[in-house]
């Protein structure tokens, strides 16, 4: 028999292993543990996770949202709190995409009464909403402050550039961190490219200063992660032998920005391919397309 939560030794806070978890997960885990909670991160994405999520959201949303819905399904009955920060905008009024903003509302209508959704609203400042959420959970400012002090080193951003060895064939994998960070989505893609002898560079290998730039078209892109994506594309475009954009079907921002990237790649004569993924994507299709792309990258190298 399960005990009511006030009888348990510790309340459990659940974090879905999806979307923003792939960037802030370590910080969240450290912070919530510091607050004195048992942190439960949902297990890695499987086919089952995805199937659970499919019924909970509209059929037209993108793959990452279906996945996060699956993770919420997994957690909702076994945790007391669900930790789902709502990113609305970051510095300079750079917005998150509508779907990311809407997730806590979807979670609220899907979870049972025993599970409370904690959704600190991030508008510009990142730290303060987290402190406020800590207060909501513990009502103890000293504990919140100590937890923050202990967890904040997990927020360190990368400052050094990756190296570009001249004798290796290099390919930039342009995609969101929550696609590449999820092994269910990205493992086949990464494996195929590695097996083809290519060195992979992603957006996460770049320092924040490069990703935040606003030169050229980046200035008119006002989605925070799309701007990062576009800056990564610009940075890599003259340093690698090929660019592969991994886009999930139904991703709205990507549908516009990838089009801009495609036009620029064509004018710069860099091999560019766009891989559209959704819940029906099979391994065979990915491998075939990426092998063809790898061949193209090799040819490009010899020609150059």
């Amino acid at each position, binding site marked *: 028999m399960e005990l009511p939560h006030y009888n348990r030794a510790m309340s459990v806070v659940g974090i879905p292993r999806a979307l923003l978890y792939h960037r802030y997960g370590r910080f969240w885990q450290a912070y919530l543990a510091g607050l004195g909670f048992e942190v439960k991160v949902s297990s890695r994405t499987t086919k089952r996770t995805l199937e659970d999520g499919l019924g909970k959201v*509209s059929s*037209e949303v993108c793959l990452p949202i279906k996945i996060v819905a699956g993770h919420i399904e997994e957690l909702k009955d076994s945790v007391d709190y669900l930790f789902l920060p709502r990113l609305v905008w970051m510095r300079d009024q750079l917005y998150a995409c509508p779907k990311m903003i809407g997730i806590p*509302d979807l979670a609220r209508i899907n979870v049972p009464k025993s599970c409370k959704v904690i959704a600190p609203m991030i508008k510009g400042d990142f730290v303060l909403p987290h402190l406020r959420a800590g207060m909501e959970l513990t009502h103890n400012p000293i504990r919140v402050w100590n937890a923050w002090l202990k967890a904040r080193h997990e927020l360190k951003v990368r400052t050094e550039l990756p190296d570009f060895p001249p004798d290796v064939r290099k390919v930039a994998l342009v995609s969101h961190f929550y696609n590449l960070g999820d092994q269910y989505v990205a493992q086949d893609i990464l494996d195929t490219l590695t097996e083809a002898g290519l060195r992979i560079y992603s957006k996460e290998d770049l320092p924040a200063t490069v990703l935040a730039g606003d030169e050229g078209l980046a200035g008119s892109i006002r989605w925070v992660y799309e701007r990062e994506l576009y800056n990564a594309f610009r940075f890599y475009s003259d340093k690698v032998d090929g660019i592969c954009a991994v886009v999930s079907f139904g*991703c*709205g921002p990507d549908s516009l920005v*990838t*089009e801009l990237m495609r036009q620029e790649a064509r004018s710069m004569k860099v091999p560019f391919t766009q891989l559209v993924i959704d819940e029906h994507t099979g391994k065979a299709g990915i491998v075939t397309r990426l092998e063809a792309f790898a061949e193209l990258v090799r040819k490009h190298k010899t020609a150059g």
Partner: protein
Amino acid sequence: MKVSFPYFGTGTVAFKAFFEDFGAEVVLPPPPTRRTLEIGVRHSPEQICLPFKITLGNLIESLELGADTLFMAAGTRKCRFGYYHLVQERVLRELNPGCRLFGLSQYSAFDFVFRRLPSVFGTPQLRAARALRMLLARSSLIHDLDNMVRRLRPHDLSAAEALARDGLKLAGATQGGGDVARVRRELRSRMPSELRPPKARIGIVGEVYLMLEPFANAEIEKELGRLNAHVLVERSLYRHIRRLLNSDPAYLRTARYAARYIGESPGGEVINTVGEAIHFARQGVDGILHIFPFTCMPENMALEIVQKIGDDYQVPVMSLSFDEHTSKTGLVTRLEAFVDMVARRKTARRSKVA
């Protein structure tokens, strides 16, 4: 300088007169057709949503007719809609390097009317104020006209269509506040005093372009009217402009309702969609239709919430997404089934009460 802009349902007439009040020569593209859509699709990114394709097709058609100064709604924030003009401008410049496309930012409407437009047309700001006043007056007239037409359709479809046609012609030709009031009285007098009760009352919520442009929604209102349903729509160009100018009292109610389900707007018109759905449910409509473009980001997040509202308030809800492959026949079949279902449900409930 020949000014043009994409069609926006019945509000097109008010916009045309608005630009003419600035002293501009307006070249309207033909109303959107299959051809418009085909042109738009040819020049659009593969996965973009439907309004992009139709408006782009419309803009290209107006270039063909000799327009060189184009206007398009914009406002880069959360929804893709705000970015349309950036991509469209690239396409249009390739086709006609001499053309200009102005993005009308929805988040700074005052700035646009009183600074950008007077500088484009070289008119004094006083004239802008007059143009804005007339835009509101005319769009408010069209708002009333649309509601009359919606009420008349289940009673007499052909009379309703005639009223819509004549009403728009009269509304476009109005020259001042008194003129608008006269036309409004004249149109009201054409409504029969006794109206047959409709088979069902159906509220429509969703994405604003899809709701207001009949070509985009495959004339869903007319089809529902043909099925003897009274269509209720809260959204209109008038309300939209009033909201952008922060002066729509009805929006306060909408936002208050929506706050029960939504902590923060995911962009687009989700606040309106959710708030109006609750409003309709409280008004006791027989069914709610939620319409949006295929893969629309904000409305797909609203979809689950609208369904939940349907559960909470015991109202049937049907969600329909539209893209260039939507067939009218398929749509009509689904509408027929929906209207029959809600009508039967209504009579069953009534007999249960009695």
